[in-house]
């Protein structure tokens, strides 16, 4: 058993899941993986069974937070030292996994974020990058820490964060949880990555939903923080 578990939540990703898992399987000396089938209605499950992949079936669609937490519970039960969130749609690159793991081990970090906007990389300006910038500013205001890519879905978590996610309710793979953990004393590092466009299918968020998402994130970063007790659980 390896130190790192790569958690891949998947909802209706029958087209991209094989390609995604190829890259991860080639790293089987560094990491294990588990695919969380979030009640997919397409042939995702058949693909997983036919190719003998390591997966967990959720009985109904529970959403990204619950699917990810299922993976964290699995990581906790099996004693993994690190767990990593990884998208099933092919946007994340498996070539960065070992770099992120090395950084986490070297610095003793609690969270390593795969960051798209680090080191002043000039990005193609779009609604998404503009929204990302606003969310970063909100993070700086609430935590005092400059995090360049707080909405990145490619994050590596240490063992004590795994335990928090597995045993509690209010921890989600969302920016406000990252900000909250930062205020609780979690050590957060960023690792430069590049992400590709979706290979197939619909994105998790449409345009209006993206704006609503941004608004929710900013509200949660700026307001909700004051409603969560800072726990010295770390």
């Amino acid at each position, binding site marked *: 058993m390896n130190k790192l578990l790569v958690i891949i939540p998947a909802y209706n990703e029958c087209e991209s899941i094989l390609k995604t898992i190829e890259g991860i399987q080639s790293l089987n000396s560094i990491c294990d993986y588990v695919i969380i089938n979030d009640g997919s209605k397409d042939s995702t499950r058949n693909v997983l069974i036919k190719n003998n992949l390591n997966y967990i*079936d959720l*009985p*109904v669609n*529970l959403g990204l937070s619950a699917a990810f937490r299922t993976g964290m519970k699995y990581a906790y039960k099996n004693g993994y030292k690190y767990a990593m969130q990884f998208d099933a749609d092919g946007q994340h690159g498996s070539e960065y996994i070992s770099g992120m793991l090395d950084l986490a081990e070297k610095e003793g970090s609690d969270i390593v974020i795969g960051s798209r906007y680090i080191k002043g990389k000039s990005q193609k300006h779009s609604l998404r990058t503009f929204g990302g910038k606003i969310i970063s500013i909100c993070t700086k205001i609430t935590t005092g820490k400059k995090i360049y890519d707080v909405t990145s879905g490619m994050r590596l978590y240490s063992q004590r964060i795994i335990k928090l996610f597995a045993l*509690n*309710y*209010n921890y989600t793979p969302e920016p406000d949880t990252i900000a909250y953990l930062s205020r609780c004393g979690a050590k957060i590092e960023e690792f430069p990555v590049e992400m590709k466009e979706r290979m197939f299918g619909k994105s998790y968020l449409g345009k209006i939903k993206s704006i609503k998402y941004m608004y*929710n994130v900013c*509200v*949660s970063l700026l*307001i*909700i923080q004051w*409603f*969560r*007790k800072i726990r010295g659980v770390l």
Partner: protein
Amino acid sequence: MTMNLRILLIIGSCLSLLYIIVRIRKADIRFMDMFSWFVLSLLLIIMSLFPRMIIVVTHLFGFESPVNCVFLFIICFLIYKLFIMSIKMSKEKDKMVSALEEIAINLKELRKENENENTVS
């Protein structure tokens, strides 16, 4: 409005806001689920501090008295909240029943596999 009534309303709305904040922190609940209650208690404080606003609306729509306007506002809010919660509860029930059905089927498949293994060995 008498001074006593104003003071009562201001203190009451402040206490309710405080209570909501304390309960949210204690329960460590997802804030967005409690968002509308938080907004309501803020609105109550604002209304109790600035009753002029209510009087303007009263005259605009011809309510018999300002307090009727406030009642209508709160009743509308409660009806809306209840309606939304009914929808949510119905959806959650469907999800739970569906999950239990899946679990039952999975258990049967597991049992079948166990029986096959036992008969083979």
